[in-house]
């Protein structure tokens, strides 16, 4: 069931109000999946799994070194979080170990299949 806004003052409608729920039209498949992930708690499990794997593979340490390098260049005082994220995201995405990526993708695909979409 998708969440519908209830308004007390809304006049009663005989039929299902298509205009009332614009969210349904806007909800992409990806968003649906995301909602299901969150609701089932699987998203949290996945987050924990990703974090553990990335820490134990040394990826996080590499990222922290990259951050420190960036901070050294830009100066400690005027670095922003957004800037840091932008600076390390390309490298971060690229340097995820293949095994970790496969493990995660596998789990996600299982979830999608079992969500019967």
């Amino acid at each position, binding site marked *: 069931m998708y969440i519908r806004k209830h308004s007390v003052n809304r006049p009663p409608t005989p039929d299902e109000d298509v205009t009332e729920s614009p969210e349904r039209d806007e909800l992409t498949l990806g968003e649906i999946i995301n909602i299901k992930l969150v609701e089932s708690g699987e998203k949290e499990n996945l987050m924990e799994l990703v974090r553990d794997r990335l820490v134990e593979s040394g990826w996080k340490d590499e990222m922290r070194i990259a951050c420190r390098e960036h901070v050294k260049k830009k100066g400690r005082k005027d670095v922003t979080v957004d800037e840091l994220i932008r600076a390390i995201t390309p490298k*971060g*995405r690229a340097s995820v170990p293949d095994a970790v990526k496969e493990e995660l993708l596998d789990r*996600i695909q299982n979830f999608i299949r079992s969500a019967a979409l």
Partner: protein
Amino acid sequence: MSNSEDNKSSHDQLSSQVFLDLVDSVIADVASECHRIARLGLDKDLEVVEEELRLSVEARAKVADPSNNLETNTKYVVDIFGQSHPPVATEVFNCMNCGRQIVAGRFAPHLERCMGKGRKARAKATRSTTASQNRNSRRNTSDNQLSSAPPGFEENVKRA
């Protein structure tokens, strides 16, 4: 209905999307953490690190350098707390035998004399009769044992 391939590719796409989303979250965490450390100066400053590096290099060079004043080094060894210990202990305390104030570094020789172990002390000790009896009896037994003592030693004994 054979959209299995389509489904698979869209599934792949979806799962990739989810995966990237997860990775981005972790990246944001790391960035936030590093940002905090950087702004609070918790991580060692670049200048501080360089300074420490320089100091450690200097210290190592000094230790390895043989042309340093070795005389001062060997006489006054500096321990890890930076304290230097003179080779002769300088603390003064009271001798428990005679009650005099003795420098700790000279305590052993003092005790020799004070308690009668040394040569000169025997002269002092023989003044008291009981003490001299004890010493003489001890000396006799020790003389018998020391049959192969060097001649100089025996002379000294006789003189005492």
